[in-house]
């Protein structure tokens, strides 16, 4: 077959590319079936129409400018930027070639070969979108990393993360400072070989008793104060918290937090030293003076009445000094939170009779009529026995002190469903109305007793502090010159508050 006689138009009927041919006006003169399929138009609908009918308005203007320039110069033009409109209004993007068909160098027709790249473009846009998403994820991961890192770094305590064998997998700057390591040297090493811990006496803590063991083997949080043993330096007290990292119910590692508590330990030591000084060092000479006068008084026939008076005065003032020391000790222990409470089963009536026995001499000396009324239905129960003793001792000795000779003091022990009620009444000097709100303050002493009675102003302060510690309440009713009644309510159910002692080292 002669190729020249081949009907080229037949070719256009069968190729998959959409083809549209316009004259130079330009009016559409031909579209092929692929074009019909792509756009939804029939040849009959488009024949003689300007191709602008296909424009979507989304194609950048410069594309048409370039196209126009090329075609008028008789050149072909290819673009992927044209977006056209179908008959139904939907848009499609094409890969288009515009070819002038010339006769004697002058274009007579223009042929457009269009290839629908909408899907391709969509995929491309999708790709770009995905890439952007990935980029965003990446960025947020980076941010997360920086945040975690910053968080870890800015924590003022040393932090070490370990795997389940105790191998160090991460640590922060503060850790480096506490232990004196470099991060890269410690990573991958076992926590147990990296440093040693000791107790306060310097005895090395065995591997199995270190807090990390508890975290790794029992999945519990372990903590306590331990001493870091470092060559050539003092021991550093560290409060260590070791927490397990649990994944799907299994311990996969642990995180240890190290807080340097040198300051707190020093403060604790100062407290202990003060208490030791006050209780032992201060009271020893007082005991010596008191006992010496007691010996002198055993046979006082040799003294004049004036000498006797002086001796009594020395003895009384020594006793006063002892009482002040005792109050100071109790108040200080209470404030430090290290007043020790003895938790045991005891009948409050039994405690009351002990207190009364201790105050017997003073009660008898002043010929005070003392009444004890105790509810027989109250039986022994678990409470802070020494605290109840201190409360009763303080209130009753105050009552005896502020009641004139021959007056009455009474103690009533009763109960409600949930509370023990202790009521101490006296026929004493009373508390002025204005002073009633302040008598529980530290070292406050009411005007009417300040000069006539000795005291530290600590008794009621300690008493109310103890009552508060037990979750109870104390109220006062008083009229000047007519006596005072203190009512103490103590709950039977004590929340056994863990004393600070428990958090301090138990070694």
């Amino acid at each position, binding site marked *: 077959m002669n190729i020249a006689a081949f009907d080229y138009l037949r070719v256009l009927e069968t190729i998959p590319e959409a083809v549209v041919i316009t004259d130079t006006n330009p009016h559409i003169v031909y579209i092929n079936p692929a074009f019909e399929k792509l756009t939804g138009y029939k040849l009959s609908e488009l024949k003689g129409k300007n191709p602008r009918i296909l424009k979507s308005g989304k194609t950048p203007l410069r594309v048409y400018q370039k196209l126009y320039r090329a075609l008028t110069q008789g050149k072909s033009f290819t673009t992927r930027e044209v977006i056209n409109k179908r008959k139904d209004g939907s848009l499609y993007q094409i890969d288009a070639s515009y070819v002038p068909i010339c006769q004697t160098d002058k274009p007579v027709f223009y042929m457009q070969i269009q290839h629908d790249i909408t899907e391709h473009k969509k995929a491309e846009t999708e790709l770009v979108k995905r890439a952007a998403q990935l980029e965003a994820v990446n960025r947020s991961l980076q941010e997360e990393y920086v945040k975690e890192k910053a968080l870890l770094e800015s924590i003022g305590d040393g932090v070490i993360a370990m795997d389940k064998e105790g191998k160090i997998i991460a640590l922060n700057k503060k850790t480096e400072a506490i232990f004196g390591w470099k991060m890269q040297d410690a990573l991958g090493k076992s926590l147990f070989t990296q440093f040693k811990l000791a107790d306060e006496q310097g005895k090395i803590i065995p591997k199995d008793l270190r807090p990390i063991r508890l975290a790794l083997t029992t999945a519990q949080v372990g903590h306590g104060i331990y001493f870091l043993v470092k060559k050539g330096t003092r021991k550093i007290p560290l409060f260590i918290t070791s927490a397990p990292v649990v994944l799907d119910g299994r311990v996969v590692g642990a995180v240890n937090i190290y807080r340097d508590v040198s300051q707190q330990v020093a403060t604790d030591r100062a407290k202990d030293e003060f208490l030791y000084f006050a*209780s032992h060092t201060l009271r*020893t000479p007082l*005991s010596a003076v008191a*006992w010496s006068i007691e010996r002198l008084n055993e046979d006082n026939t040799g003294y004049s009445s004036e000498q006797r008076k002086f001796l009594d005065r020395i003895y009384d003032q020594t006793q006063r000094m*002892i009482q002040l020391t*005792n109050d100071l000790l109790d108040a200080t222990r209470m404030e430090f939170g290290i007043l020790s409470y*003895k938790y045991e089963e005891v009948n409050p009536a039994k405690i009351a009779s002990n207190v009364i026995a201790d105050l017997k001499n003073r009660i008898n000396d002043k010929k005070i009529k003392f009444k004890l009324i105790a509810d027989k239905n109250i039986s022994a129960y678990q409470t802070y026995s*020494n605290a109840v003793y201190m409360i009763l001792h303080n209130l009753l000795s105050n009552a005896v002190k502020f009641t004139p000779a021959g007056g009455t003091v009474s103690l009533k022990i009763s109960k409600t469903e949930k509370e023990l009620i202790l009521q101490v009444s006296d026929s004493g000097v009373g508390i002025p109305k204005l002073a009633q709100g302040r008598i529980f303050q530290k070292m406050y002493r009411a005007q009417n007793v300040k000069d006539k009675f000795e005291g530290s102003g600590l008794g009621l302060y300690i008493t109310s502090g103890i009552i508060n510690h037990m979750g109870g309440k104390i109220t006062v009713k008083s009229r000047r010159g007519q006596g005072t009644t203190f009512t103490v309510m103590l709950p039977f159910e004590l929340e056994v508050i863990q004393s600070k*002692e428990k958090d301090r080292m138990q070694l």
Partner: protein
Amino acid sequence: MSGQTKKVLLIEDEIVLLELLSDKFKDSGFAVTTAQTAEAGIKLALQNHPDLILLDVILPKMDGLTMLKKLRKDEWGKGVPVIILSNLNDQRKVSEAMKIGVYDFLVKSNVKLADVVEEVREVLS
């Protein structure tokens, strides 16, 4: 007092207090031995087998409660009555002493010499 003279051992490092106690107990008819350290105290206790020991807590080297624990391991020392006489009155120390086994825990500045003697008589009667 019934029968023969009762023997008390006083362990106290403050010489002034030790003298006051010692004189008071002698005047009250007791046979008195004294020690100023826990080490000397336990030695005297195991040698002389006193009827009662008055024991201080704070002592120069070994403290009173450590001495008490050692004493309680001895066949004789298990049963001898001990009264703590100290100026420490921290409840923890009191509880610790009570757990090891003492008759009482007296605070020096809160008791008269006469009270101490009376309590010792009470234990030994």
